[in-house]
């Protein structure tokens, strides 16, 4: 994954503020760069993980492959924030949401393009990658067309 002895710190680009730079699943950021939201699948037992993991807690294998999060998820809940932690003031207000894909769930932003009145628990949404200021990457949910 890394280039020679250099640390692969791509994860520092994740989100508005990131709190960690190095992880074995740094390719997640490479995929976001390509516009893809990816999770991991355990090659031994088949368990799906989102967010992606390098290690399977079910069978303790570390032999993983990437899969793309595709299709519609159901909005399980959402919350629009009027206050934010340090570093997020400039992006207020924003909405957090949780999508259910059946085998796994995805936590992320709900697109600011959707007025809060149009959001409802149970609606179908799809994730999309967004690029933020300063070459940073994130994903958000938009209405399924």
């Amino acid at each position: 994954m890394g280039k020679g002895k250099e640390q692969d710190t791509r994860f520092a680009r994740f989100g508005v503020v990131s709190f960690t730079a190095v992880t074995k699943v740094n390719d997640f950021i490479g995929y976001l760069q390509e516009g893809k939201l990816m999770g991991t699948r355990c090659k031994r037992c088949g368990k799906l993980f989102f967010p992606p993991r390098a290690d399977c807690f079910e069978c303790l294998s570390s032999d993983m492959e990437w899969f793309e999060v595709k299709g519609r998820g159901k909005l399980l809940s959402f919350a629009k924030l009027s206050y934010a932690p340090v570093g997020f003031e400039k992006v207020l207000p924003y909405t957090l949401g949780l999508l259910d894909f059946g085998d796994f769930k995805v936590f992320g932003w709900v697109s600011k393009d959707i007025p809060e009145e149009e959001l409802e628990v149970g609606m179908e949404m799809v994730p999309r990658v967004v690029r933020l200021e300063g070459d940073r990457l994130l994903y958000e949910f938009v209405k399924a067309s």
Partner: protein
Amino acid sequence: MGRVAIIGVGQSAFVRAYPGSLRELAFEAFKEAVEDAKVKPGEIEASLICSAPEYDRQRSPAGVIAEYLGLIPQPTCYVETVCSSSTTGVIMAYSMIKAGLYRIVAVIGVQKMSELSSMEVQERMGRGADIQWESPFGTMMPAYYALYARAYMAKHGLTLEDLARVRIKSSLYGQINEKAVYRKPVSMEDFLNPESRFAQLVASPLRVGDCCANADGSSCIILASEDVAKSVCEKPVWILGVGSAAEAVTMTGRPDLSEGLRVAKVAAEKAYRMAGLGPKDIDVAEVHDCFTIAEIMAYENLGFAKPGEGKELIRAKETYKEGSIPVNVDGGLLSKGHPIGATGGSQVRTIVLQLRGEAGPMQVKDPEIGLVHNIGGVGLYGNVIIMGR
């Protein structure tokens, strides 16, 4: 094997900004508990110092606090499960005594949050979530509980008025609790008037009035073996059952949000089984109402109400002091304030005073069995402790 009792309880006033240092704050609750237990600091064989890290400059505060309280050279260590740290401490102390290694153990919960700005506190709270996968989206405690509230309201028809009812009940008892930080009355009008501070959204659907306030405070619980308790204590309160559980940090790893907190359900099942008791046997309870929705979910997770029917308890005032299952009649976190590491000990203290009949104006009529439900993080850790006379 002998039983384990609580022989002394203490709590500082919970305040916005304590005018002293962390160790001085710890001293306040400790002094009250030691005097209550009628033991000398030298007789306490071990101490557990419970708080959430990152609010103090002092690294490894256990040693400093133990020294200040006169608890050396007896062993001490730091116990942390964020907001449930001090009930984790009580359960660990119970185990230490049950194992026969110690006869008297002091559990000291302490938190001094006022040295940080509210925003900085929120940043730290946000990092109580998964820093790799969720904090980069700008998460914080009220937002997570708002996700639970939204899912719950959508499924069970809980209303914003029901949430306000929880806060109104809390304020009734906050007014008569001299150690609470918020002691003013709260009415439905405070939530319905859009100009009111209480009605301002923090993370929809939760409003300012739905959230507890940060506070500085300390608590101390002294536990003892059965033989010690019987010889020094007139009204020992016995620990009948304990249960603990842990949950996925990420929301993606959680079961259905509309069912409340799995940690509370699992911890309660364990505690009830150990005590040989059920929800119907509980005469008075303290639940972790860091947000109004949390109290409603607690009613159900503890079995006081069936799933989806928690709202009926608050609508019918069954959780008031005169009701069938009084809950948080000391004002709860919503009125007392929430000094993270001290909160669980404060809940235990309230139940001990209730069971002794020493709760003053907050006293419930003749309770025999009491329960504490204390949650760490957003349902990340859960402890349930059942006590009896």
